[in-house]
C-alpha cells in the first residue's frame, strides 16, 4: 500500500506536466483540426533555447522570458503562415506529413545548434525531500506541480474570461461563422500555435530542469502527450488534464509493478500501450466527440 500511494503521488506530479504539454496539442486541434506530431520536437527545442539563453548567455530572467516569447511567436507565425496555411483544403495526410516533416526539421536544427551531450540547468531549488506520512517527494517535483497548476489556472482564465480567449473558442466551434462575425481566423490560428508552443515550452523546461536537457528523452516525452490526448479525447481540455494525470499515474504504477518483471524501462512504452488500447476500445477517448459521418 505504501508503494502504491508513493507511485500515485509521483505519478500525479509527472502527470501534471504531461497534462500541461498536452493542452498544446488539444488547442491546435480544436482551432485548426491539425494534429501536431511535432510537439515532442518543439518541447525539446524550446527547452534547449531557454537553456541557451539562461545558462549559456547568462541573460537576466526577464530578458529570457521576453526573448523566448518572441522566438515562440516567430515559430508560431512561420509554422502557420508558411506551412499549414498553404495546405488548407488538402487531404488530412498533407497536414500530418507536414507536422512530421516539421518535427524532423526541428530535430535537425537541435542536432546542428546544440550537438553533443545533455545540458544541465543549475540547481536553484533545495534538493531535499518532503515527507508526508509514508510518501516522499522532492521539493522540485512539488514546485513543478505548483507551476503546472498556476499555468493551468491562467490557461482556464484566458479561455473563460478574456475576450480573445472566448473568440478562440468561438472560432473552434465554427470557422465560417467566426469569420462572418469579423474574427480574423488566420490570426487566431497563429495565436493557437503560440499558446501551444508556450505550453510545450513550460512543460519542457520543467522536465528538463529535473532530468537535464537531452534531445531524445525530451522528444519521447512530448510524444507521450499524444497518448494523453488520445486517452482524454481530442477536443476536450478537461480530457487533456484528466488524461495527463491518468497517464502519469498509470505509467508510474506500470513502472513500479511491472519493471521488476521485464527488467526496467517500461515507462518508455507504457503510455503507447494505453494509447493502442484506447484506440481499440474507445477510439474517441474519454471526453472526445464521436463524429457522425455521411457519404
Amino acid at each position, binding site marked *: 500500500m505504501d508503494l502504491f500511494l508513493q507511485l500515485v503521488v509521483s505519478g500525479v506530479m509527472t502527470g501534471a506536466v504531461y497534462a500541461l504539454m498536452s493542452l498544446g496539442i488539444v488547442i491546435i486541434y480544436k482551432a485548426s483540426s491539425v*494534429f501536431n*506530431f511535432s510537439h515532442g520536437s518543439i518541447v525539446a527545442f524550446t527547452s534547449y533555447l531557454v537553456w541557451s539563453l539562461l545558462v549559456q548567455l547568462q541573460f537576466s530572467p526577464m530578458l529570457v522570458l521576453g526573448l523566448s516569447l518572441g522566438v515562440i511567436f516567430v515559430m508560431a507565425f512561420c509554422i502557420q503562415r*508558411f*506551412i499549414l496555411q*498553404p*495546405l488548407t483544403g*488538402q487531404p*488530412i*495526410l*498533407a497536414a*500530418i*506529413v*507536414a507536422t*512530421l*516533416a*516539421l*518535427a*524532423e*526539421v526541428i*530535430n*535537425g*536544427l*537541435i*542536432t*546542428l545548434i546544440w*550537438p553533443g551531450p545533455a545540458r544541465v540547468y543549475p540547481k536553484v531549488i533545495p534538493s531535499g525531500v518532503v515527507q508526508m506520512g509514508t510518501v516522499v517527494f522532492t521539493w522540485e517535483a512539488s514546485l513543478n506541480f505548483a507551476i503546472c497548476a498556476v499555468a493551468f489556472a491562467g490557461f482556464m482564465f484566458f479561455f473563460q474570461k478574456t475576450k480573445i480567449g472566448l473568440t478562440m473558442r468561438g472560432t473552434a466551434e465554427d470557422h465560417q461563422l467566426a469569420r462572418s462575425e469579423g474574427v480574423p481566423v488566420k490570426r487566431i490560428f497563429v495565436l493557437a500555435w503560440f499558446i501551444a508552443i508556450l505550453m510545450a515550452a513550460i512543460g519542457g523546461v520543467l522536465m528538463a530542469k529535473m532530468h537535464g536537457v537531452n534531445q531524445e528523452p525530451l522528444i*519521447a516525452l512530448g*510524444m507521450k502527450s*499524444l*497518448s494523453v490526448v*488520445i486517452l482524454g479525447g481530442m477536443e476536450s481540455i478537461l480530457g487533456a488534464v484528466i488524461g495527463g494525470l491518468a497517464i502519469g499515474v498509470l505509467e508510474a504504477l506500470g513502472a513500479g509493478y511491472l519493471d521488476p518483471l*521485464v*527488467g526496467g*524501462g517500461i515507462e*518508455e*512504452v507504457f503510455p*503507447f*500501450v494505453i*494509447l*493502442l488500447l484506447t*484506440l*481499440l476500445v474507445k*477510439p474517441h477517448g474519454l471526453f472526445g466527440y464521436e463524429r457522425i*459521418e*455521411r*457519404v
Partner: protein
Amino acid sequence: MLKKPCGTFDQTYAQDMAPVRTLYRKILLVCLFLCIFILVPFLANNYFLSVMNIIGITVIAMMGLNILTGYCGLISVGHAAFIAVGAYASAALSNHLGFPFWATLPGALLATAILGLIVGLPSLRIKGFYVAVSTLAAHYIVIWLLLHGGEVTKGVWGLPCESPVILGYRLNTERSMYFLIMAIAALSTILAFNLVRSRFGRALVAVRDNDIAAEFMGLDVFRVKLLAFIISSMYAGIAGWLQAHYLGMITIEQFPLMDSIWYLGMLIVGGMGSITGAIFGAFAFRLLAQAVISLSPIVGQLVPALSGSSVAGITQVLFGLVILFFLVVEPRGLNHRWQVMLASFRLWPFPY
C-alpha cells in the same frame, strides 16, 4: 489507369487488360531491364552498387507503404518498425536455429504479417490521423520490445546475420547482392503493379476515397484495411529480410522513427498512389542522402561551424524542408511531373 497515346484503341479485352500496351512501351521496358541487370552491374563501381542496393531495398519497402498509405489511405508512421521486425526475425532464425538464407524468408513474412494484423486491428473503428497515431505508438512499442528481447534479439548489441548462399554460391560482394536485390525489387514491383489493378486494388482505392461509400457498395472495409496492413507489412518483411542478410549486422539504431517519417516523405515526394511515384521517391531520397554525405566536407570547409560531424543534422533539416516544399508546391509529387513530361513529349510539336 494506363494513359495510352492517341490513336491506340483497344479492340479485345486482352488488349484492354494488357499491362504493357504499345510497342514503344515494350521496347523501353526491355531496355530498362537490360540497363538494370546488364549495363549497371558491369559498368558501375562498388560504391555506386552499394547505393543501388540500398535503393533497391528501399523500393521494396516503399511498395508496401504505397499500398497501405498511397492506395488505402491508412497513414503508417511505423514502417521502419515493420522492417525491423522482418530483419530481426530472419536474423534470429538464422542465428539461433541455423536456418539457411532462403528459409528465413517465410519466418520474416509470418512475423511481419502477424504484426501487421495486430497493428491493423484498431483500424476497425478509426481512420485518418488516428491510424497515424496508432502506427506511431506501434513503432515505439515494437522498437522497445526488440530492445528488451533478451537473448532473442540481444538488445543494444544486435544480431549478426550471414550473407546469403544460393545454390552453394555465397553472395558476399556488392555486385552479387545487387543481382539478388534488384531481382526481388523487380518482382515486388510487378506484384504490386498487378495487385493495384486487380479487384482488391480497386477496393483499396474505394476505401481510401470514401470508406462509408465503399461499405455501402458491399465492400468489407475492415477486411480490406486489415489485408492492406498485412500485405504492406509483408513487403516490409521482405525488405528487412534482405537488409539483414545484406548488411550482415542488425542493430536497433538502423530503425529510428526518423526512417518511418522518411518513408512517408518518399511517398509524398514521389507521388502518392502510383507505383512509379514510389520508385521515384526512393531514388530521390537515397540519392539526396548520398549527395549530402559527399558534399558535407566541402560545406564544412566553407562554413567551419557546420563541420563534418553534423551530416545527420543537415540531412534531417534538408529532408524535412524537401518534404514541406513538395507538400506545398507539388503535392502530386515527381510522378506528376514525369507524366506531364511524357505527355508533352508524346504530343510534340503540339502543345496539347
